[in-house]
C-alpha cells in the first residue's frame, strides 16, 4: 500500500514540474507588469453568497470559495493592480475537472473594464505556453490548439445560436441554461484556438456590472480552451445597494433550494462604494496545468486528491 502510493506520486513528476514552472512564469508575468502579489485569509466569516456554490465550514467560519471579497477591499483601499495564487474550497465539487480544494489565480485591475483582462489572458497564457516549450500552439488530445492573438470573442447569444438546440433566452425561460451550456456548447468551444465567451444574461453575473447600453447584459466573460472552462471575469459591480440586492437574491435562492445559509458580508459591502471602476478575473491553475499536461483528469496535475489522503 505504502509502496504503491510512493510509486503513484513518483509517476507524477513530469506534471508536478510542469505545474511548478507554470506558476513561476505566472508570477514573473505579474511582477513584470507591476502587480502586487497579496495573500488574503483562507478562512473567512462570510463568503460572497452564490446560488450554486457551497462552502466548507471551518469552526464557526468558512473556507473561502474565492478570494474575491478581501481582494476587492484592497482594491477599494487604493491597490489598483493585485494578484494572488491561493487555495479555494467548494463543497461537493469532485469530477474529472473538479476538486473540492483547488488553486485559483485571481487578479484585479483598477480603472479599466473586462476587455483589458482578455488581453491579459492572451499574453499570460501565450507566455506560459512558451515557457513550457509550446511556441504558438500546443497539442491537446490529438488536436493542435493555436495560440496566435487576438483570440476569438463570441457572445453568449451567438454561441447558443451557433451550437445549441435553443436560444439563450429560451434556455433561461425553460430553466436549462446550465445543461445546454455544459452539454451542447462547452464541448465545442476553443477546439482550434482559445475563445472568450462574453456578454452573459444579467442574471448570470451576480458580481458583474451591466452593460451601459443594455442593462440585460452583464459584462462577464469566460475563457475556454479545448472545451475546458479556464477563467471567469467581470467588470466589477461597484454599486453597494445593487450588490446587496443581488446577494439577497442569492441567499433567497439558497433558502428555496434548502442549501446552507450564509451571513451577509457587511464589511465588504460597506467598502464597495469606494472601489474604483475595476475588472477582476479568476483562473483555474489546475485546469491550465491539465491543458499543458494534455490530460483530461484533474488528479493528474496535483500530488494529492481527497481520496488519496
Amino acid at each position, binding site marked *: 500500500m505504502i509502496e504503491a502510493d510512493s510509486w503513484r506520486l513518483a509517476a507524477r513528476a513530469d506534471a508536478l514540474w510542469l505545474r511548478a514552472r507554470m506558476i513561476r512564469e505566472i508570477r514573473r508575468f505579474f511582477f513584470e507588469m507591476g502587480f502586487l502579489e497579496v495573500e488574503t485569509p483562507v478562512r473567512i466569516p462570510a463568503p460572497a453568497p452564490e446560488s*450554486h*456554490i457551497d462552502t466548507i465550514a471551518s469552526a464557526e467560519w468558512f473556507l473561502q470559495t474565492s478570494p474575491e471579497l478581501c481582494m476587492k477591499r484592497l482594491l477599494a483601499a487604493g491597490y489598483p493592480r493585485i494578484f494572488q495564487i491561493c487555495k479555494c474550497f467548494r463543497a461537493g465539487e469532485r*469530477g474529472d475537472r473538479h476538486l473540492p480544494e483547488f488553486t485559483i489565480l485571481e487578479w484585479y485591475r483598477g480603472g479599466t473594464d473586462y476587455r483589458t483582462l482578455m488581453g491579459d489572458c492572451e499574453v499570460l497564457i501565450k507566455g506560459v505556453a512558451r515557457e513550457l516549450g509550446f511556441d504558438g500552439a500546443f497539442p491537446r488530445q490529438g488536436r493542435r490548439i493555436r495560440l496566435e492573438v487576438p483570440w476569438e470573442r463570441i457572445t453568449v447569444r451567438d454561441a447558443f445560436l451557433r451550437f445549441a438546440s435553443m436560444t439563450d433566452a429560451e434556455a433561461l425561460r425553460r430553466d436549462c441554461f*446550465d*445543461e445546454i*451550456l*455544459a452539454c451542447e456548447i462547452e464541448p465545442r468551444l476553443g477546439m482550434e484556438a482559445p475563445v472568450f465567451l462574453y456578454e452573459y444574461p444579467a442574471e448570470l453575473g451576480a458580481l458583474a456590472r451591466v452593460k451601459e447600453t443594455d442593462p440585460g447584459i452583464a459584462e462577464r466573460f469566460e475563457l475556454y480552451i479545448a472545451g475546458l472552462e479556464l477563467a471567469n471575469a467581470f467588470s466589477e459591480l461597484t454599486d453597494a445597494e445593487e450588490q446587496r440586492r443581488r446577494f439577497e437574491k442569492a441567499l433567497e435562492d439558497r433558502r428555496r433550494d434548502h442549501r446552507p445559509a450564509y451571513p451577509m458580508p457587511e464589511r465588504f459591502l460597506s467598502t464597495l462604494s469606494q472601489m474604483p471602476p475595476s475588472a477582476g478575473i479568476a483562473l483555474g491553475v489546475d485546469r491550465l496545468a491539465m491543458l499543458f499536461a494534455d490530460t483530461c483528469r484533474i488528479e493528474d496535475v496535483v500530488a494529492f486528491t481527497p481520496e488519496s489522503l
Partner: protein
Amino acid sequence: MYTASDLRKGLRIKIENDPYIITEFNFVKPGKGQALYRCKLKNMINGNQFERTFRSVDVFEAADLQEKRMQYLYKEEGKYCFMDNQSYEQVFLSEDQVGEAKNFLLDNIEAEILLFEDRPLGISLPNFIDVVVTKADPWAKGDSVSGNTKPVTVQTGYQLQVPPFIEEGEKIRIDTRSGEYLTRVKG
C-alpha cells in the same frame, strides 16, 4: 434514498419502477452555474441504455435487489427455469440474463438468482464446478506436435482447452468466472 451527490459508477437506483445501474458518471459544473451529474444508465431488466443529467436537488430511491438461492430445473423455448426449494416458487430467466452461466448449468445445480421485487435479473454460480468430460481425443503419448492443451467437451455441452492427459469420462473442475480448466478431480 440517495441524493445526486451520492451518484457514482456502479450505483443501482430505481426509476419508474425499474432498477438501473449507473455505467458511466461525470460531475460537471459550468462556472458559477449549477452542479450537474451526467449519468449513463442501464436498465437491469431489459438492458436498455440512456443518458440523463441530474441536478443536486434530485433524489433517488435505491434499487432494492435481493439474492435468492434457487435450483436449476430445465430450459424450454430459450427460457431457463429455476425454483426456490423452500417456497417451490419458480422464475424464468432469458438467455441474456443467464449469460455465460449457461455453459455451466448442470442439472439441479444451485445458483444465486439476483431479484428486483421478485423479477429475476441475473444469476451467479458457485465459483467452481465439477463436470464430466463427455468427448475428448485420446492422448497420443510423446506427441509433441499437438501442443500443451487439447479441446474437450463436457456434460453441459461446453467446450474448453485442457491438458492432453485428460480422458473421456474423467471429472474436471472449472472456474465458472473465467470458464477455464483448474484441475482433474479424482473419484
